[in-house]
């Protein structure tokens, strides 16, 4: 299942995850955010589609406020794409799978 391909990212494992070599897509979300619930299945599908090429993870901003603060996240859902440990793309709010793939494909050979 695609579901299990989405990693859980925390304040604790964030740095090692984004510096792990592969590009990393991080979904900043929270339980109380309706649009985040809408975006979740799309993120799960992306994890399946880019399996082996991009690490896809979810970061709960409620439980991991430090990372959200560090990247000045003031609205969710927000997706950040990291390459070589740096933010290369940012998508705020809802987006469909096709447009997200276009954003990711710019950075994934």
């Amino acid at each position: 299942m695609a579901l299990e391909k989405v990693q859980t990212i925390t304040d604790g494992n964030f740095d090692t995850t984004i510096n792990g070599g592969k590009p990393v897509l991080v979904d900043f979300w929270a339980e109380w955010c309706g649009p985040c619930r809408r975006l979740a299945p799309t993120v799960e599908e992306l994890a399946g589609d880019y399996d082996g090429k991009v690490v896809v993870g979810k970061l709960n901003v409620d439980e991991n406020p430090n990372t959200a603060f560090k990247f000045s996240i003031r609205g969710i859902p927000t997706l950040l794409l990291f390459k070589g440990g740096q933010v290369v793309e940012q998508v705020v709010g809802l987006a469909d799978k096709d447009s997200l793939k276009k954003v990711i494909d710019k950075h994934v050979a």
Partner: protein
Amino acid sequence: MVRNVIVIGSGPAGLTAGIYAARANLKPLLIEGLEAGGQLMLTTLVENWPGHRDGIDGPDLMTAMREQAQRFGAEIIRGNVTSVDLMANPFVVKTSDGEYTSRALIIATGASARLLGLASERALIGHGVSTCATCDGYFFRGKPIAVVGGGDSAMEEAIFLTRFASHVTVVHRRDTLRASKIMQDKAFGNPKISFEWNTEVDDIKDKGKGEVTAMLLRNSITGARKELAVDGVFVAIGHNPNTALFRGQIETDANGYIVTHAGSRTSVPGVFACGDVQDHVYRQAITAAGSGCMAAIDAEKYLEGLPQHLGEGQHLTVPTA
């Protein structure tokens, strides 16, 4: 395969249409769209949905409606419609993943939050500018913020945001609120809320810094300008109907809302509209659901080719297929 009916949209209007069409054995296809679940997904407690005495969580209500539609056999897909052709029957509906044809179409695409239209506003979305208090209020704990607008949604957001913010300033361009009496009383009674009346937003700072630091306000009567230091700006100035897909193919009013007559009928026979996409007056979950029910019944009658529920001077067009 030509379907009986396709429903575009998955708020209370679309899902209720889906429930009724499924129970009429029409095997509807429902295309959810990007903002699946509609505006109720952005709310918390819904206190005016009849039958839930103590209120129900908006996203929970939409999840239950979706499951109810599926239980009766509605096929629900997550796609976003990219184009429609209403010029010939069967109608053609395209998504990024496929193409579908149908003898009847129910439009329930709703309305989306309107923005002020400032360049700085667009640049700062996700960095202090928001249209969703329930999503983003959390990030403004102990900070001063502003809500722009004077309707029910604006008051609801302002009241909700006092849970987090140190202070909420409501910026409204008139000298009275459009909000209902109960919401006004709640807002006026809240010590954390103050009001800036007859006030327009000229700009939001600070685009260069990539975060909201202040708003530039102008009093529309005196012309006086001032800067209000805030960390967040929540925009709640109303909605625009999501009708871009249908432009030029169906009658809309001056504001883009689909014009309906004799129930949910539109200018195109076989195309029905329900919910906020055709209603700028009531805009409630319950009225949207009610009109969704009407659209499904109207579509069913249309498909049966029976001349029922026609208004005066209306002529029924029998489906060609």
